[in-house]
């Protein structure tokens, strides 16, 4: 969600020249770790803080306060020339855990499947593991297949998806470039369907199964400039930026 945080900071600063906001990327884990260590005012995260992280924050004398600032859907993407366009959550889980290894098993060509993922420090990675691979079951301990390619950036995933016919990848809907919009996988909760393609509309009406909230955490109840900034982020102006970047605005 670094794109979104940057766009917000830029717009807000152009209207408030006396405020300076600097945004650093690195993944939700990085942001939360910085909040826990007391080096930032606000941590952006695409996942909720874990109980462990909250405990560490308390130990450092910091009480994190959570704000939901936007919504996001994780899109599953294939190469444009791959004929497969619909998968159930169970099939995606089996592909990523290594039970399904060939596209022919899910109605495609006879080709090996190359699994792409973000690095483990990305909130998208953790969310995908919990909601898709483990199907939201907290007792499930299925892991990513070891031969899953862990790429350090969204750009790496998009690039490999463009050129490699064998590849399957996932990323936030906001990061999918226009040329791959036609190769999004329609995801079904069950084999009988319905299969839903991710879009702003299908995320907001809850029909797309792989969507999540995006958070900002502050160290203690926000005061002064941070408080004004958070209020602005929930305003209509800031939420239009959310839609412009391909994320999903929260409902008022």
């Amino acid at each position, binding site marked *: 969600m670094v794109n979104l945080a940057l766009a917000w900071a830029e717009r807000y600063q152009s209207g408030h020249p006396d405020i300076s906001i600097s945004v650093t990327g690195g993944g939700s884990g990085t942001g939360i770790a910085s909040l826990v260590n007391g080096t930032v005012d606000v941590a952006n995260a695409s996942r909720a803080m874990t109980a462990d992280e909250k405990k560490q924050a308390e130990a450092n004398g910091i009480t994190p306060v959570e704000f939901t600032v936007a919504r996001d859907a994780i899109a599953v993407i294939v190469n444009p020339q791959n004929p497969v366009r619909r998968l159930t959550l169970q099939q995606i889980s089996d592909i990523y855990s290594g039970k399904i290894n060939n596209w022919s098993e899910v109605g495609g060509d006879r080709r090996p499947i190359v699994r792409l993922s973000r690095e483990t420090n990305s909130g998208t990675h953790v969310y995908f593991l919990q909601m898709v691979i483990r199907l939201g079951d907290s007792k499930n301990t299925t892991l990513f297949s070891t031969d899953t390619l862990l790429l350090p950036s969204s750009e790496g995933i998009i690039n*490999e998806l463009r050129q490699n016919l*064998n590849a399957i990848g996932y990323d936030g809907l906001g990061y999918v470039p226009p040329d791959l919009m036609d190769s999004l996988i329609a995801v079904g909760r069950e084999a009988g369907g319905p299969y839903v393609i991710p879009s702003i509309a299908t995320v907001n009406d809850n029909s797309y199964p792989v969507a999540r909230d995006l958070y900002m955490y502050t160290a203690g109840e926000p005061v002064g400039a941070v408080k004004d900034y958070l209020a602005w982020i929930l305003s209509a102006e800031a939420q239009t930026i959310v839609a412009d970047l391909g994320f999903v605005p929260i409902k008022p």
Partner: protein
Amino acid sequence: MKRTLNWRETIITAIIKTCGYSAVVFVLLIFFFLLREGVPALAEVKLGDLLTKRWYPIESHFGILPLLTGSLIVTVGAMLIAIPFGIGTAVFLSEIAPRWLREVLKPLVELLGGLPSVVLGFLGILVLSPFLRVFLDLPTGLTALAGALLLGGIAVPTTVSIAEDALDAVPLSYREGALALGATKWQTIWRVTLPAARSGVLTALMLGIGRTIGETMAVMMVTGNAPVLAVKLTSIFSPVRTMTATIAAEMGEVANNSTHYHVLFFIGLVLFLISLAVNITASSLVFKSKKRAERVLS
């Protein structure tokens, strides 16, 4: 007058001594820092668990074997490319190429050595890995082979530059002597010039290996970073995850003093010990060969 000269002498000697000793002190400090941050990992994770083949730190699977084999396969692959190409190019520049060509080529090679590895990484992602996938019909081009080729390319300029200096420093009389005895040009190079420059050439190779095993960015971009145990010969055609890429990718995210943090430092310690072992082996080889040469000469 004499007094001031003495004063100056003392100060300069002191400064030079400080510089010399500080190199040693820094290495020791870094080593102790790695020990302090890395050894707690052994208390938190059983050694048996560290030596398993599953690396998934966010769920406390801390098996470092895939990372170790990943680094090894990429480094060995890179050296298989860098050693022949490096020495071959150095020999060509110093022994065979005409003077004007050498004056042009050597700065070019050194310029290549100055290229940031991120730039090479981009080249790897956009050109090398798609080429490998199509050419070798692999499922993906992001493999150990791509990493080895790229790292070989990164190590070659360092190796060439230093090895060429070493060859160039061999006195002309050695070559003239060999040629006068009726040796061919190839015999002179292989039996006289190269052995005479041996310690310099070995140093060049060591620095090349050093660059390879420590290189991070380019490797992280092209090897796919999948923590697969790479023990078969065909593993070179599959994705691997190296120790350096693991540290770089995960260090930014870990909370201070967590188990994951300590294990990452432990990996750093392993890396440090590997390069130490490589360096000690190399310098003892050089030392041995020197002693033999001295015996022969006396």
